[in-house]
Every structure is written in C-alpha cells, then in structure tokens.
C-alpha cells in the first residue's frame, strides 16, 4: 500500500472509533445533563442538550428519602459478602480442579460447574423463590441474595481460578515441599501470591455482577432488604417520573464500581492476561 492509501485507512479507522465512542459516551453524557436539569426542562418536547437551568441540588434531593442511602448500603453488603464467599469457595474449588482432578472426571466436573452460568437465569426464578421462602430467614433477607448470587458467581470464580492455577507451575509447590513446607503452607505462601492479580480480577467481576443484579433482587427482596437497582423505580412515584433524580441516583450508584475499577486496574490487566501470557 502506498502512503496515501495508508493514510486513508488510518482516517477511516479513526472515524470508526469516533462513532463508536460517540455511541458509548452519549448516553453517559445525557445521564449527566439530565441529572442536572429541573423536571420541567426534562419534560419539554424538544430536549435541550445543555441544561438551561442547572440544578445540582438534585444530588442532595435524592437523599431526602432515607431509603436511598440504605439501598446503597444494602447493595454494598450483598455484593461484598457474595464476592468474599465466591472468591473463597472458587479459589479452593479451582485449586482442587487444577491440581487433583486432572483427568476426564475433572474436565467434565469443571465444565458442569461452568455450565451453571450458561442457562438463562429466568429459568430458575420461580423455583428459587420457593426455595428461599422455605428457609428460616425467608426471601427478603441479605442471606437470600448473598447465597443466590453464588449460583452465578461461584462457577465463574471456580473456572477462572482453575485456569490461573493451571498456569502456575506445580514444581514451585513441589520445590517448597522438598524444602519442608506442608501442602497447605505451600499453597498459601507460594501459589496464592502468584494468582493474586487473578483473584483481584475475579473479585471485581463477581462484585460488579452482584452490584448490578436486578431481576432476582426485585422478586425476592424489597422491604427489609432493598438493593439500589430495586430502589430506582421509587423515583417514579405517581404519574410523574423524576428522571433527574433517577439519573442522579444512577450516577451515584455508578461511582463505587468505577472507583474500584480505577484503583485496581493494575491488577485487573495483569489478572486478565494471566491465562494468556505465561511467565
């Protein structure tokens, strides 16, 4: 290709990226300006693309309802507890699959565990309701969501951790055994530090899933426990939908995952590339 043709290709690629960025960023932009508008301006037939009246007070307004803060706290509790549990179980199960169940049985078991993540969640919606209804703590509790989300997060955690463990050479542990470590000590001191970036990525994925989940949370909980996605519709009281409050609250709810992601991105990149690049 001559340089002219090359330049055209580069420009076409850049334009393509530009359109893509516009598509992804425009909704975010519209959220932000909507969150800053008064209700009257939102309801106009021709929407404004820059607020005529700024109403930053919206962000204070959403917390007039004490349920708003509580829903965020509930979400943090559910997401964090579920992540901790998924990671704990997934790490141990992944290690066992990687090291001790290497044959056909192990392969199939690992695939079965992952396949739990593949069917449509709605399929188990009703059975789950009855299952949790039968527990002593009932459907509307932290435990029901924390345990229910394991159905989705544990297979993912197990599978990914298994892949990470498979990529850490067994000989490192064996060298430690010969130097006098017990298998348990070798696992914690030698192997776990190597997969730590991977664990951070897995934790992140689990946490975000539990943070965003709406379907099950809406069906099972709503009174004692109310996570933020379930709380959002309460801004649509009566005939009037307070879109500015909905958007402001959604923006606030976006912050924790974004902050986590930025804080941990160093580990994320390393963790997600663990399976790809050995070494």
């Amino acid at each position, binding site marked *: 290709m001559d340089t002219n043709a090359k330049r055209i290709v580069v420009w076409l690629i850049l334009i393509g990226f530009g359109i893509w960025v516009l598509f992804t960023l425009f909704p975010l932009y519209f959220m932000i300006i909507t969150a800053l508008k008064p209700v009257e301006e939102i309801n106009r037939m021709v929407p404004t693309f820059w607020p005529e009246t700024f109403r930053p007070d919206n962000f204070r307004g959403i917390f007039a309802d004490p349920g708003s803060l509580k829903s965020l706290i509930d979400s943090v509790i559910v997401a964090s507890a579920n992540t901790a549990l998924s990671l704990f179980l997934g790490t141990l199960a992944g290690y066992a699959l990687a090291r001790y169940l290497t044959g056909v049985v192990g392969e199939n078991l690992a695939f079965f565990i992952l396949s739990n993540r593949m069917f449509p969640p709605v399929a188990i919606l009703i059975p789950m309701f009855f299952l949790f209804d039968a527990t002593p703590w009932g459907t509307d509790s932290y435990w029901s969501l924390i345990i229910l989300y394991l159905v989705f997060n544990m297979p993912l955690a197990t599978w990914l951790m298994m892949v990470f463990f498979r990529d850490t*050479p067994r*000989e490192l542990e064996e*060298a*430690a*055994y*010969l*130097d006098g*470590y017990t298998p348990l000590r070798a696992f914690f001191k*030698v192997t776990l530090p190597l997969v730590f970036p991977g664990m951070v990525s897995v934790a992140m994925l689990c946490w975000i899933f539990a943070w965003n989940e709406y379907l099950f949370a809406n069906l099972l909980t709503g009174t004692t426990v109310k996570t933020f996605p379930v709380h959002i519709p309460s801004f649509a009281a009566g005939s009037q939908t307070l879109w500015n409050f909905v958007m402001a609250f959604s923006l606030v709810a976006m912050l924790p995952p974004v902050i986590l992601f930025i804080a941990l991105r160093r580990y994320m990149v390393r963790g997600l590339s663990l399976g790809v690049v050995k070494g």
Partner: protein
Amino acid sequence: MARVTLDRVNKIYGYGPSAVHAVEDLSLEIEDGEFAAILGPSGCGKTSTLRMIVGLEEITSGTVAFDGEPMNARAPEQRNVAMAFESYALYPNFNVAQNLAFPLEVKGVDASERQRRVERIAGLLQIGELMGRRPRELSGGQQQRVSLGRALIREPAVFILDEVLSHLDAHLKFQMLFELKRIHQELERTMVYVTHDQMEALALADRVAVMSNARLQQFGDRDALYDRPANRFVADFIGEPPTNFLDATVVHDGGAPLLHVLGSDLRFAVDGERAAAIEAAQLDRVTLGIRPQNLTWNTDGDTAVVGATVDFNEYLGEHTILTLRDGGALFRAIVPPNVDAGEGARVELHYRTRNVMVFHPETDEFLG
C-alpha cells in the same frame, strides 16, 4: 546421609490404552556418600525415577528405601532430600537471594547464618552480582545456577540434581563440574545426578546408571561401561565418537575363530576369552563392536591389523577422525592429527584383540 535403594521400582502414568510405562523394574543401590549419575536419552524415565526417590511421584510398584528404611509412604517434606529441578522452579516473586535462602528459612536457620551460607554458595556458582534480581530478569543459565544453589544450600541426606548444567556454555560447565565435585567431597553426602550428557556423568560420578526405554541397562563405573558394556546400547551411548558396530560371520581358520565382516574383506581376530564366549553361545553370526579410540595408527607390537580405504578425513586439531571403508563396511578411527592419510588412501590400523567386543546379533547382549 543415606544409602538409597530402589527395589524393582515401576512407574506407570495413566490408565488403560493411554498408560505410559515410564520406569520398568528398576533396581539400584546407591551407596552412602556415593556420587551416582543417571544417564540416558530424553524420555527414558530419568526424571520419573528422581521424582519417585524424593516422593513427588507415587510409586506404582516396588520400594524406595533410605538406609534400608522404606520411604514409599513418607511425604517429600519428611525425606530430607534436596532437589534441583530440570525446569528450575524458582519462586518468581522472590529475588535470587531470597530464593537461595528459602530452604534455610523454612528450617529455621537464623538470619546471619543464612546470609553467610547464601553468600558462600553464590560465590561458588558465580551468581554473586545477581542477588537482587528476580528470576525473570535472569538468563537461562543464570536461573539454572540459582536453582542448583537452592538445592546445594542445605545439607540433606540426599542431593538430587536433574540436568542442572544443561544450559551452560562449555567453559562455565567445566567450572561448575569442578565445584560440584568439590562440594561433594566436602559434604560427603549421597548425590544423584541426572544428565543426558555422558561427559558430565563420567566426569562427576563414581558410578553411572545407564537407562534406555524405561529400563536400567547397566550400573557401573567408567571402566565397566567402557570395557564391559552390558549391551550394544551402552556401548553405543558411552564414548565419543560412538562405537563402530559391524555385522560379522564367525569363521574358523584352523583353531581360533575370526570375525569376517559381512560385505567386506575385513577380518578381526579376538582374544581367547571372547573366542570362548562365542563358542559357548554357538553362534555363527555376531555383531562386532570396536571403539574408534581402539583403532590406532601406531603400534607397540602387541596388536593385530586391518586394512581399509580412507573415505573421509576430519581434522579436529587435537586429533583426526578417519572414516574408513572396505567393501560395504564403514567404520571410524581416531588417529594423530598429523597422519598422512588423504581421501582414497589405503591405510592400516592396529588394534588389540581384547578390545574387540562381541554382541549377540539378535538380543544385542554383550558376549565378551
């Protein structure tokens, strides 16, 4: 310190049709304080054998014992062995100094003593300048020496070293061989050294176990391997360039048998011992083996002679390797560097009749 005994040890990986019989009926007795080498081509079961000795691999059948005490049921951490892995197995999160100190730390050796031993071993292995680096910042040969150092830093009952010098240049390898030998003499511990390089094995070890195809072929010292190889494989594997093998018929020219090489006019005489062995086996066909070193240019009188045509003359500085032909038979001889033997020249070579080895033509066993 320990005498290491392997009694009919087998290792089978996997089950059913995909099973691999990696070690077959291996019996071996390594004396306390002995430097033993296991030598054999790639895939013959050396690493599998080592892993069973240290306890990392389950023993399919047979017994591994230290000082007569069976070890089969003992976990690796209870066997008091140190091993250097073929794949180095350095801890990627630790730097060189921490890697070296790790075995001492686990054993609870105090910090100043650790420091002293780490510096000493680093000096011996010439890795002193690398102490602060991580394994991934080292070359293959440097990693290999750190891994060797980590194994040598303790004083266990048995040292197990799996191809620990394979990635070093010839010069460095020579120095490391010397250091290893010295460490062994100093500590007087049992060492088992695995390699596929016969030079290393013969230079270091008191005795060498030659393996091939999962089986032990011979366990003996240098002289035994050179002069009384158990079979054709050992004779071929030990020695550089490899032994000449020629198919021959046994002809009785009045009294002593002569070996008449097929497809040529070459005739080799054998000494009385070998003649008796051939008679006893009642063979009229044998495989004859003679080392290139044992076909000499000069003679001190007590030798027999063969004539052949020079096919190829390789001048290698310290000596010359002649590839010779007579009829359809090809063989090689090592001669002094200055001999006048151009390609196509007719030459005569001398040999001692006791250096002619005779093998069974089908089983490849050494007859005498």
